[in-house]
């Protein structure tokens, strides 16, 4: 133990006497202060005494270390009074928000922490250690309360998800359990995802009965085996261009490589919407840049799509390595998605954006004197004519980029998609759908040479790679009343689309089943 500290703890009569002198109004102090105000030779004597090594002073400083009353008496007069600073105030002055912090929450926090808690010592002595301690506490809490998240472990670069990866995770898990089933993956834009339709009217819900019905009709009369269960998985999201579908198809192929299921078959419906070939929807050429890692590492392709060039060099390998291992072992990284889903209902940035946009919208409505009205009261299945839409609003969506132009990015990516689908047809049979379009809105645009050139080019592209194509953009069976707008379908429209898809998928579904039966 330090002998000085022992001395300090023990009540020292000398100290008490000196401090009592200090507390009491001292005529000696007044004398000195009066002397200090005027230039005084006595002050000089005193300060000279202070500078010189004084045995008396040394005695006091050895015994008392910090407060030597005699020393303080003079030094207090010689120095301006020092404010009692927070130990962090020097650091705070360097903070860009230091002044604000000093004034408000930091002062409140500091006062709260002056209650002599254990953490106070940590905070005062080691601020970085204090921060690390909190992180450690949070890590332990997360480990104790939340299960592991396979989604972020599988794709640590996108901890909040990327292009319907939740469905992909479920598909991989379902195929791993070995149930006999036909898995249909809907891969494309909002038409396939049925984002505008309420539950019960979505294509993913209408397709299984339609396909099951056709499988039953195809099975031989009196056959013992029932057709396998049909499961439909929607790996689709609004605005997905050909580049997104191409990358998503590659991702699906890689994901299924680890989940081979010999008892179930899988077919993919990849959609292509003609509006994405237009000048209006040319940009962005890839709506989901989080999928860029699944594109071929071709710098010219990345530049064409407006993406940063694929990374090369040492850091391009260290970053995925660190992401993979840290996300696997550190829950602070792994559980971001769980926490965001629990607290915000989804990815934080989207939640923030939605909240902000709806707040601004509400504010604008209030400023206009309107009351914000929820749109849920309206029938979501109303056709476009009941929504006040006009043909002119969507006409620019069919202003096709010339196919030989370097700006025809979606067409060039569609050609790559056809090539990819052609190469994968042995493993993942793919049907390409040109989604239905509202004939009443298309009108004369159907007859324009650029539109006809586009549709015939699409036919020849997919035919060249022996990829089946279901072209419904000019199918007259899709009545105008079956559309919510230019291309999104009502429930009736989705029912018809499901029927058409079931018919087109049947040969793809039956072919591998027949082969398997033959092998058995």
């Amino acid at each position, binding site marked *: 133990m330090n002998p000085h500290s022992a001395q300090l703890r023990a009540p020292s009569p000398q100290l008490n006497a000196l401090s009592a002198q200090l507390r009491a109004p001292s005529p000696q102090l007044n004398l000195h202060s009066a002397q200090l105000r005027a230039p005084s030779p006595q002050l000089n004597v005193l300060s000279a005494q202070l500078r010189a090594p004084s045995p008396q002073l040394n005695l006091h400083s050895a015994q008392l270390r910090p407060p030597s009353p005699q020393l303080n008496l003079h030094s207090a007069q010689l120095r301006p009074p020092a404010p009692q600073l927070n130990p962090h105030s*020097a*650091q705070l002055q*360097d*903070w*860009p*928000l230091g002044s604000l912090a000093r004034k408000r929450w930091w002062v409140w926090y500091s006062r709260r922490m002056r209650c002599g808690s254990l953490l106070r010592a940590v905070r005062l002595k080691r*601020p*970085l250690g204090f921060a690390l301690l909190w992180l450690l506490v949070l890590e332990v809490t997360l480990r104790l309360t939340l299960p592991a998240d396979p989604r972020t472990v599988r794709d640590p670069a996108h901890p909040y998800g990327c292009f319907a990866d939740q469905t992909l995770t479920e598909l991989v898990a379902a195929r791993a359990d070995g149930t006999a089933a036909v898995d249909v993956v809907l891969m494309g834009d909002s038409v396939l995802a049925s984002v505008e339709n309420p539950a019960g009217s979505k294509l993913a819900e209408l397709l299984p009965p339609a396909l099951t019905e056709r499988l039953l009709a195809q099975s031989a009369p009196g056959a013992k085996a029932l057709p396998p269960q049909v499961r439909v998985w929607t790996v689709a999201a609004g605005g997905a261009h050909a580049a997104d579908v191409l990358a998503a198809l590659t991702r699906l192929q890689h994901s299924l490589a680890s989940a081979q299921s010999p008892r179930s078959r899988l077919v993919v419906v990849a959609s292509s919407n003609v509006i994405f070939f237009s000048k*209006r*929807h040319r*940009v*962005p050429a890839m709506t989901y840049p989080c999928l860029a890692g699944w594109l071929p590492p071709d*710098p*010219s392709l990345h*530049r064409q799509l*407006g993406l940063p*060039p694929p*990374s*090369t*060099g*040492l*850091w391009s390998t*260290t*970053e995925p390595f*660190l*992401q993979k291992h*840290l996300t696997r072992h550190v829950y602070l990284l792994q559980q971001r998605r769980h926490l965001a889903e629990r607290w915000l209902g989804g990815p*934080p*940035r*989207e939640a*923030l*954006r939605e909240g*902000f*946009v709806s707040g*601004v*919208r509400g504010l*604008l409505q209030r400023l206009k004197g309107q009351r914000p009205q929820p749109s849920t009261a309206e029938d979501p299945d109303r056709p476009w004519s009941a929504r006040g839409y006009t043909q002119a609003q969507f006409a*620019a969506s069919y202003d096709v980029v010339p196919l030989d132009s370097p700006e025809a990015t979606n067409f060039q990516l569609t050609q790559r998609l056809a090539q990819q689908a052609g190469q994968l047809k042995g493993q993942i049979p793919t049907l390409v759908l040109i989604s239905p379009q509202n004939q009443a809105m298309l009108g004369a645009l159907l007859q324009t040479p650029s539109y006809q050139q586009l549709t015939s080019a699409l036919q020849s592209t997919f035919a060249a790679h022996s990829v089946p194509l279901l072209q419904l953009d000019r199918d007259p069976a899709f009545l105008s009343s079956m559309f919510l707008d230019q291309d999104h379908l009502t429930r009736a429209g989705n029912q018809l689309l499901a029927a058409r898809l079931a018919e087109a998928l049947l040969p793809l579904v039956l072919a591998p089943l027949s082969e398997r039966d033959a092998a058995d």
Partner: protein
Amino acid sequence: MQLTSLTFLAFVLLLLPVHGLLPSRGRPLLLLLASLLFYAGAVPLHALLIVAMALTMYVGGCALHRQQSRALYVALILLCVGVLGYFKYWRLVCSMLDFTATGLGWQALHAATQHLQVEDVRIPLGISFFTFEFVHYLTDIRLQRLTSDLPNPAGTAPGPGRPSLRGARDFLLFTLFFPTLLAGPIKRFQSFGRSFTPTGEDLAAGLARVLLGLGKKVLLADSLASMALRLAQPDQTTPHGLWLAMYAYAGQIYLDFSGYSDVAIGLSRCLGYRIPENFNWPYSATSLPEFWRRWHISLSSWIRDYLFIPLGGSRQSPARVAFNLLLVMAACGLWHGAAGHFVVWGLWHGLGLGACRLWRRFRPAPTAPSRLLRVWYGLLTFHFVCFGWVLFAAPSLQAALQAIARMFSRAH
């Protein structure tokens, strides 16, 4: 390596303890090696390029210091600007030539530009920043602002003089200093030389600044980015949406860039270097000149010192000053990106600065404007800058003009 990546975090966490344990004379070498690794880890070939250029500039600077040769100065400036031009502007120049040749029907020029067109040139990281630092170094030597009695980065030996290994190391460190390599600030050799031994307070304050910068970038700027994306698709966005996107982009670009600057300044402080501040609440400016004194300060002061003043500064006729402002701001726009809309953004600010200058000439500013007047001036300045951001953020000039037209339309 991005400043927000895990690799960068690991890199810094490994570097800081080693830096702290080394004696002060060994630290510049450690930082140089770390900076070289930082750069070479991305594209090794580009690291060779930047090292070769830095050594050339250093040796050339030493020769310039001894001889004061105008020809040597011009040759060195042309070399560094030429390298920047090749990597960053060659495609733009070729496409402009091709456009002209096609328009005028000059087949020979058209064929030549097709032949000269280079595809897939990857721009070296931070080339715009270190080119400007080279120009500053050479010009200051030429103007004898960088004399041999100034300390060099190690603080031990004189600045440019006879070429030496220590001098080369210090100049390489100045060029390659990794915290400022990707997004600035643009350093000055004189101030970079005053390194110090970081204390615990420096470390704490530096790390706090790094955290502040990361917070600005990751939490705020990246969140605003998704809203600002709508500026790229004006015909698919409502006018209200475009206004919102414009404000979001104004926030995003400020928070993004100042966040990177905070990380660079904080990290430099942890390593014992003072880096100039880059932002000072720019959106609180009450005039456009004041905005440029608060926004990207290291760039605007570089442009003032090495472009505007050499062109004559403010001591010319009003018409000449206005022309010079347009010229330097167009160059500033071109520095930000090799595309027409960046140049138009620069011209927009050049016009604004010229207009402010003329306005002040005929109507001097009140000595103590009222608070209301200051708010009004602030709003005007902010919106002028915001419309500039529409030009900056849009993928093309056509899209930018379309966005601005749509913002004032009544269409939905």
